[in-house]
C-alpha cells in the first residue's frame, strides 16, 4: 500500500474542518514512520519491545487514524463516525480506546515529557531495542513543558528518543534561528527536511546517533497557505 491509498481513508473522516490543515501536514511523516521505520505489529499492539510512537500534537488526528486503519490496527469502518457518541475515534486520540495509540493527547505540551519517561522506563527494564518517537507541532513548542523535556533529554543524552517537529510556521511569534537550533543547543542531533519528501524524512530519521537524542524538523507548507 502506498500513501496515495491512505487518502481515501483520510477523506472518510469528516466533521473536523478546523483541524484539517494540521491533519494533512502530518500525513507524509506518519506514513514514513509506519511504513518504513516503526517496529510495531497491529496483531501485537502491546508487545513490550515495540517501538513507541507518541502523537503529542493530538489535534487533527485524521491522518493518524487513517494510517493506523491502513496498517490494520482497527477496522476502516471506525473512520465513518468520527467523534460520534459511540465512536472510539475523537478529535483528540484516546489510548484507552484505540489500539496502537500510545498516549491520549490533545492538550499541547504533554507528549515529550511522557516520551522521556517512557524511554527511561524501557531502559530501566533492560529493554534497549525500542525507540521512542514523539511527533510535535512547531506552535506546540511554545509550551514551556516541552523546554523542560528538551533540556533534560539533551543533558542526559537520552539517545532512544527521537522528536519529529512538523513545522508549518504556525507559532505566533516564530522561532528565530529555526527550530532545529533550539534542540541542538541542548545537545540534540538535529536535521531539517522537506516534510513532503518521504526519502528525506526517512534519511533524517536514520541520522540518530548514540549518545544524544535526535530531532527531525519536517518543514511543510505554512498553515493557511
Amino acid at each position: 500500500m502506498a500513501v496515495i491509498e491512505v487518502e481515501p481513508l483520510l477523506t472518510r473522516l469528516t466533521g473536523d474542518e478546523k483541524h484539517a490543515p494540521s491533519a494533512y501536514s502530518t500525513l507524509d511523516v506518519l506514513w514514513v514512520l509506519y511504513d518504513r521505520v516503526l517496529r510495531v505489529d497491529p496483531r501485537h499492539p502491546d508487545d513490550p519491545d515495540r517501538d513507541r510512537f507518541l502523537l503529542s500534537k493530538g489535534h487533527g488526528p485524521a491522518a493518524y487514524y487513517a494510517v493506523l486503519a491502513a496498517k490494520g490496527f482497527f477496522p476502516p469502518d471506525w473512520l465513518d463516525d468520527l467523534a460520534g457518541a459511540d465512536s472510539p475515534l475523537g478529535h483528540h486520540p484516546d489510548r484507552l480506546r484505540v489500539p496502537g495509540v500510545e498516549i491520549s493527547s490533545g492538550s499541547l505540551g504533554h507528549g515529550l515529557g511522557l516520551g522521556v519517561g517512557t524511554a527511561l522506563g524501557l531502559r530501566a527494564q533492560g529493554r534497549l531495542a525500542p525507540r521512542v518517537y514523539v511527533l510535535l507541532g512547531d506552535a506546540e513548542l511554545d509550551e514551556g513543558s516541552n523546554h523542560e523535556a528538551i533540556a533534560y533529554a539533551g543533558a542526559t543524552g537520552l539517545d532512544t528518543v527521537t522528536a519529529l517537529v512538523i513545522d508549518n510556521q504556525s507559532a505566533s511569534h516564530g522561532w528565530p534561528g529555526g527550530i532545529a537550533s533550539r534542540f541542538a543547543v541542548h545537545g540534540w542531533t538535529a536535521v531539517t527536511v522537506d516534510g513532503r519528501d518521504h526519502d528525506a524524512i526517512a534519511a533524517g530519521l536514520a541520522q540518530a546517533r548514540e549518545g544524544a537524542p535526535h530531532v527531525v524538523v519536517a518543514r511543510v507548507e505554512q498553515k493557511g497557505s
Partner: protein
Amino acid sequence: MREAFAGTMSRLIEEDPRTALVLADISAAAFEPVALKHPDRVRNVGIREQLMIGVAGGLALTGLRPVAHSYATFLIDRAYEQIKLDLAHQGVGAVLVSVGASYDGSTAGYTHMSPMDVQLIDTLPGWTVHVPGHPGEVAPLLAAAMPHDDPVYLRLSAQVNDIAYADAHLLRPVRHGSGALVVAVGPMLAPVLEATRGLDVTVAYTHTPRPFDTAGLRALAGSGNVALVEPYLAGTSAHVVSEALADRPHRLLSLGVGRVDLHAYGTPADHARAHGLDPAGLRTALTTWL
C-alpha cells in the same frame, strides 16, 4: 516524616526493581546514595515539575511504579494538568509524595505553602490520599502504595501527633463520648485532643481521608453532630460527609485552613493560631457550635 520517607523509599528502590523515583532537585541529596546504585530508577530531572510528572507517567506506561516527590505547591499546584492528563487520563497511576504541607513553610511565605493540595487532588477520581500524623505512619503507608498501580497521594507534614496509629485507614476512635463526633485528620489529632479535653465528645482519627471511611462515619455519628478538622483547606471533605449522612438529620462543622493568603511569615504555630487550628481556637469553635 521527610526522613522516614527518604529511608523507606531508598530501601524500596533496593528491594523492588519495579520501583522508580523522580525528583525535581528537592530532597535530591537525601537520595544520592541510592541514586548512585540505581541511576536508571532514581532520576533527578532538575527544577522541572511538569517534566517530573510527565516522566512519572511515561515510566508507568512501561510498567514501572513511579514515585514523584517535591514541595506540595510545586508537585500538585504547579503540575496539576500533568497530574490530570499524564497520569489519570492515560490510565496509569503514580505515588506523589509531598513535603511542605499547608503552612509548614510559613517562614518562606505563601510561595511555599499549599493548603489546597488535597482539594485539588480531590477533583480527580480514584485517588487514595494519606495524611500521616506521625513519622511512624509513613513507612507502612508508602510500602503499601507500591505493589499496585493506582494513584496515591502521600502528604507529609512537619506537624506531628504524639502517637502513631499506623492502622488508622478507617476512622479510629481515640476518645469515646456520648455527644458529637469530632474527626481529626492527620496532624490535627494532637490539637483536637487538647481542645476537646473534658468535653463529652467522641474523637476519631484517620490518616487516610480518601477514600473516606463513610461506613465508620455513619456508625460513629450517632448524635448527627459531626465536626471535621482537617489540616488543609476547610471543608475539603465536607461533601463526602454530607453524602454519607444524606439520609439522616445531621449538623456538620468544617474546620481547616482558611482560603485567604495571609501575606504573613512567622512559625507554623502562628499560622495555626491565625486559622483557628490551635487548641484554643479549636475549642472556641467547637464549644460555640456544640
